[in-house]
């Protein structure tokens, strides 16, 4: 299952990249990147997963003393949380930029924003 999730994650990343490279619409590129980010998150979580263990939350079933043998690795989860939030921040920013660019030039085609070159 880990492999499957991880493979899905990687494929999502690749699909995202492919979308970002072949779609010239700014918004679609942003969509593609959110896909890639989701893929990354899946990969990270999949790495932390260990077969037959539970979520890293202590309760009656998982006591503090038994935790080491019962829970899965909490670190990747912590990282993913951060990554998701950062991803949102960047996405929001890109959206705002896209909007402003559209407002300036009236197009969402990235190939139209090549005033700076060479």
């Amino acid at each position, binding site marked *: 299952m880990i492999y499957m999730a991880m493979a899905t994650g990687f494929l999502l990343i690749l699909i995202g990249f492919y979308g970002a490279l072949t779609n010239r619409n700014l918004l679609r590129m942003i969509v593609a990147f959110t896909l890639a980010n989701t893929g990354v998150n899946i*990969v990270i979580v999949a790495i932390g997963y260990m077969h037959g263990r539970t979520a890293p939350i202590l309760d009656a079933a998982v006591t503090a003393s038994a935790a080491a043998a019962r829970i899965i690795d909490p670190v990747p989860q912590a*990282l993913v949380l951060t990554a998701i939030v950062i991803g949102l921040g960047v996405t929001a*920013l890109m959206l705002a930029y896209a909007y402003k660019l559209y407002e300036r030039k009236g197009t969402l085609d990235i190939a139209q924003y090549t005033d700076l070159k*060479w």
Partner: protein
Amino acid sequence: MVNALYLIVAALTAAFLLGFLNPARRSAAYTITLLALTFMSCVSASWVWEFAVNNAAPVDIFTAGTEPPFAINLRMGLHEAALTLLVNLTGLLSALYLKDALFALGRRGMAVLLVAVMALCGIILTRDIFNLFVFFELAVISTAGLMLFSDDSRALAAGFKYLIVSQVLSVFFLIGIIFAYHATGTLNIDGMAEASLGMKTGGSIAFFMLFIAVVAELKPFPANGWALDIYESAHPAFAAIFSAATGAAAIYATDKLLLIGGAEWLPISTGIGIVTFLAANLLALPQTNDRRLLAYSSIAQTGLILAVLGQRDILGDSAPFIAGGLLFSHAIAKAGLYWLSGLIAGRELADWAILRSRPLLIFAFVTFIAMLSGLPPFPGFYAKWELVHMLAGEGRLALLAFILIGALIEAAYLFRWFGYIIKREQTDQTIACTPFQITPILAAVVGGWALGLVWGDLSASHFGQSNLLLALPLLFALSFLLLDWLPAWVKNTLAIAGMVAFFTLTYAEYDPLRLIFAIIFLIGGAIIFLASYDAHGRRIGFYPAAMLMYAGLTMLIRATDTFGFFAAWELLTLGSYFLILRGKRSEPHALSYVIFSLGGAFLILAGFALAAQGAPQFDLTSLSQLTQPLAPWVFLLLAIGFMTKTAAIGLHIWLPGAHSEAETDVSPMVSGILLKAGLFGLMVLLMSMGKQQLYGVELTHVLLWIGALSALLGNLMAIFEEDAKRLLAYSSIGQMGYALFGLALMNHLGWLMALMFVINHYIYKSMLFLSAGGVAKRTGTRDMYKMGGLITLMPLSFIATLIGIIAVSGVPPLSGFGGRWIFYNAILTTDYRLPMIIIFFAGPIAFLYLFRLIHTIFLGQLKDEHRKLKEAPFWIILPQMIFVALLMIFAMFPGLALRRVDTYLNQFFPEGGLSWAGNTITSSYGYWNPIAIMIIVCVIFGTLFAWLLFVNRRAQKVKQFNIVFSAERPFRPETTHYAWNFFAPYRKALGFLVQPFATRFWGTLTDLLHTTADLTRRLYDGNGQSYVFHLFAFIVVVYLMRIGV
């Protein structure tokens, strides 16, 4: 000490505090921002002090009350302190600079700035890989945000492109982090390093991803189009941050990362770095937009530093010194230049000519480009020196060559730019700038010089070099920067006094050979300075440049080790470049001068480095102990390097323009004096290394050929020159060819002859240049065919020229003959006959151009428009008359100068010395009595002259014109003076020899570089997707390289 965490706390507190304020209260918000940044700078500064002065140990800062690797920790050491200081100061100064923009954007903008600086500090401080990622993302986002400060509407698109790229990078970063974590079980950088990530399953690829994500922030070629766009469109103050601070942080992050990757990643870093360095510098060549040019330069510098990081295996403990020197030079200079660019309205390089209205800003600019080019006395110079030495010591010669080539290209476009500033059309408007904009720039200047002092000190204490900024001649030269407000004559007096005083204080320290050079450089320089009294006003910029050149020359003869020698060489190059650039139309010539000179200097550097074999300090005399197979290569490099200065044929194309376009009193300085530096270098080289064979070819024999060809072709080209000063300049090529020939003979008399040429050439070329300059000043042209008949109007100039040409041509009884006599005696002892034949040919040819010089200017018919000319100004005539006297004295008593040298040379060439019995100078082949010759000639001449005068005692002076044309009007007035295309038959017969082959060769080379660059830069088509494309290509290529390794 203040906990380093407060760097982060302070920025965040300030950023959040801003939210409480009424958006309208901008000044309060601005004050808070500045206060926070000041506080941060102070914290960093105090740590720098603690580590640098008190030698404290690095401090680890734990968070969450838990020890690493279980919680995030930061580290504050000397490197972190210095880098955060750089970041914070850049932030603070940029905040000052950004005042208007910050007021316009309000508190949110200020918050973004604060967070940006905080994020960069975080990148530097943190020791946790995921924390590094978070700070990186902060930096990325704030970068995108700070793009909004720009007035340029394209900035938004640039920011967007950056976000696209950084999204891709963050994917790689995260994947890399999580797999690295999986492999090592920790997120701590030091922990990962200990666990040797590369050994674990998948660890190597995980590291590859991390590496890519961080290295991509260093804008490697070709995945750097986004960075260029950011630099170009961003507000200059932000571009300063992006270049100086972000760059520094990213480099340090890479450095930390390489800790994890270990040795196997070093070659890849080097590869990426050097390719980027070369490519970016090349691509900058055809650039005309100032900010984009700086962008390319930034990228190049970062690439160089990456390459240096990749050489850590051989640099060892010196790595921080070298990388730091390069980094700080780059950061300060780039920040300064970007700040400067904010003052310039136009975006073309030539628009910077407006800087001329503010000499202070020009000084700032010079400081910055000198720092970037790695010139002394800035940190980059010391760093470059050590780097090149260590590379050469370990035999990494290809890398060494690439670095030097890249650096040369960089210097080329930077100095070309400087040429634009000094020479291009200047619009009427002046620079409008607020104190808020000037302060950062001046701070950068001060910082640059201060760091020069620091690095000099480090270099002195760690590698035993000398701190250049403490060298008396240089200090004296620099003091003229402070005195530049004084009138020219005061400064001139000071300069002369200083040089003479220095000579009198130190003359006892030189051996006879050096003494001759010392006299020429210091006393000779002082004599030429007499002509500078002719200048009026303040003559801003002249004295610092001239004194810099003299300081370099003085330090050159005083140098005992290769470091001192090379530093002096660079200084004198720089000084003379500024001098040459002062000429009216000298822009392209000064540029080619500085490019050739720096190219030569790099060869010298490489030669010294190769010779030293890694030893940090190397005495010039130790050159003699080199053995095969190294020695001939060292010899070759050094010889070519020195020959760029003596303008040996093939490397000569800079000389005619540079010498002829220079100002009247500058031409003799750069011709009469500066050229001798190259000869001095050759002397030092040949004296210690002697004859060397390479692939069975005797290298001195090659020099002999070069000398002979220079003599012949230099003279030939002079014949066909219409421009008086160019003619003299070509003549210098020929004269230096003779001197080179003499040295390459490698016998006693050959050397003596070379020295004779050194002295003679100084005297007569200075005299002739002054004379020609004085005439040009009066007539307003340097084209000889536009003159004629000036003998009656400018008799003193005529006498100087007459004496000069007699001396140059070697006709007895003047001192040129002595040189020829020694020359013939010298060649009798050697077996190289063919080059001699060539040099024989050069002799009579010299006569042709010399005659042309005196005839077309002073003889023939006077032009109508010149009828009211006056003699050249007194101060220009005075040194000429001194030279006439000197020439006479030296002609009669050559022993004054040569006798001691002759004895001195015995220790190198025990055989073949001269005997100085009585007044006769005797060699083993012939003899010569200068005083007798002088007396005999004078008696014969005087008798005949007196007799003729007596016979024609009442001759009536007849107007030349009347008698020639019998009072008839000539058909066309311009046909009265035959001067244009003077040696037409010669051109018909031998003109094919002076086809501009060398010029064509170098021109083609330059064009080729430009075309390549112009085609390659189309890669950056401005499309964000293309940039992602490049990034992917870069990733795949690096991966393939990695597999290949």
